[in-house]
């Protein structure tokens, strides 16, 4: 295991590297927006990666926690006038509560059955939020009025959003780094590799999964809250979209390198800009073509990059150093 100082150095160096695109894009609102969104998605993928990657519990229901963060913040801000900074606390708390309720039964399922069951929860949440007039305002969604100010987490200068999302990404990554070296981190890695062997080694498998899920859900809710204040609009199809939200977190981690600290960041860094570029260049020619190209790229990644970008890079490095 590398020493604490080396890990801290790696974390700080990595974060500086991640900061670079923002500095480069400062003068260009189009690119700044892409970088901002990439930070947010990288943070969310990193939050998913804690239980999905380290713990190997392939949740496709993280849209529920994301939705809790987005909706609770939007509602408390518009209806009760709470600062979005304050609403983060109840959002995290509710997400953890719901996460434990969902996990209790679903953690008994293994592999694909767990993924399918959690995906079903995402769809249930969609239907519920869409149906209820109170408090979620049904299919009309909630529009958040533009009242700029730090306390309202609404900014005139777009770069401030980029800083905000970067802060979120740094927080998630920092927690992942600490977790990876902690007792819980090792328990999650062990149960991912072999649940029965982990139990035989004296690990309380269910407790470790629940703790990992709680941390992951709380961070995902924070990401949802930031998303709501960034877009200043939440509605059911946006928040509970499987392709853009629920499955997306897992996908970015997979492409970057599942179960690694850097994987989700690399995945978002690659996919978010490419996606935007494809959308802007291909949509005019042939609407929907961007999704076809992106889908094909992901199939190729699944076939040839089994351990993501991180895995491919480690293979290359390993070949050079070991031989």
């Amino acid at each position, binding site marked *: 295991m590398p020493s604490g100082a080396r890990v801290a150095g790696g974390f700080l160096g990595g974060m500086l590297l991640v900061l670079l695109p923002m500095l480069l894009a400062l003068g260009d609102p189009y690119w700044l927006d892409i970088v901002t969104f990439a930070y947010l998605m990288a943070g969310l993928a990193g939050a998913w990666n804690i239980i999905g990657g380290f713990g190997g519990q392939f949740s496709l229901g993280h849209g529920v926690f994301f939705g809790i963060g987005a909706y609770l913040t939007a509602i408390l801000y518009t209806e009760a006038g709470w600062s979005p900074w304050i609403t983060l606390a109840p959002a995290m708390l509710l997400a953890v509560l719901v996460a434990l309720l969902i996990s209790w039964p679903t953690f008994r399922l293994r592999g694909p059955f767990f993924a399918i069951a959690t995906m079903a929860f995402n769809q249930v949440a969609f239907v519920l939020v869409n149906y209820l007039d109170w408090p979620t305002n049904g299919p009309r969604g909630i529009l958040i009025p533009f009242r700029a100010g730090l306390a309202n987490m609404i900014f005139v200068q777009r770069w401030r959003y980029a800083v905000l999302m970067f802060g979120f990404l740094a927080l998630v990554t920092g927690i992942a780094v600490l977790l990876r070296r902690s007792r819980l981190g090792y328990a999650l890695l062990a149960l991912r590799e072999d649940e*029965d062997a982990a139990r*035989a080694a004296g690990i309380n498998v269910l407790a470790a999964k629940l703790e990992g899920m709680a941390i992951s859900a709380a961070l995902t809710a924070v990401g949802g809250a930031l998303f709501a204040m960034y877009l200043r609009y939440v509605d059911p199809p946006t928040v509970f979209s499987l392709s853009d939200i629920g499955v997306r977190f897992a996908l970015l981690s997979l492409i970057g390198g599942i179960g690694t600290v850097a994987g989700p960041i690399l995945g978002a860094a690659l996919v978010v800009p490419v996606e935007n570029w494809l959308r802007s260049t291909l949509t005019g020619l042939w609407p929907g073509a961007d999704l076809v190209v992106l889908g094909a790229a992901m199939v190729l990644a699944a076939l040839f990059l089994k351990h993501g970008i991180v895995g491919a890079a480690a293979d290359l490095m390993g070949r050079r150093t070991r031989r």
Partner: protein
Amino acid sequence: MSALLEVTALSAGYGQVPVLHDIGLTVKRGEIVAVIGANGAGKTTLLLAICGHLRLTAGRVVFDGAEISREPAHRTVSRGLVMVPEGGRLFPFMTVQENLELGAFHGRAREQRRARLEEMLDLFPVMAERRRQLAGRLSGGERQMVAIARAMMSLPSLLLLDEPSLGLSPLMVERVFDLVRSLAERRGISVLLVEQNVGEALEMSSRGYVMERGRITKSGEGSVLRGDADVQRAYMGL
């Protein structure tokens, strides 16, 4: 000698399917006890039931003076009752050292982790050379050694070994059995051994039990069972 493990009238199964019926068995301190039987006799199930991986439908398990019949597996480990599953079941994408460290997960073992790790690496020089290698790259015999060492990291007083010789070359089988014998003799660790390698298992065990279709049909001293005509015919091909 007092009994370290005492199993009385134990029954267990998977869901609605009963597998074990009315099992009685004891292991004394420092003793190696073998459970032999054909495939599907319920030997592995018995180990799983004893250490809490499987819920009992009836009966009692008393370990070191405490009843553990309803305790989950992760808790029995911290009491010193540790199972080495069939095939070793290492964590393949972790290094040998990480595998060993994970054996010392509960409080008491965690405190002694470092000293214990060095001790294990001393005991297995091959392992020391490979401590940074992924466990998945080890050979079958090495894997079994690491699995036993991982269990030793949990500070066990009783090891439950499930077919440690399965799939190993005769030379490796001998080394694994030598290791088990030395753990019992030098460190006073009790061993409950499930084996298909009946002759050798009984030779190093002080006592043995024969299982057939979920019941214990015969028991006795290792040397007596080895000479038993039924046992020789059914399990040793003599």
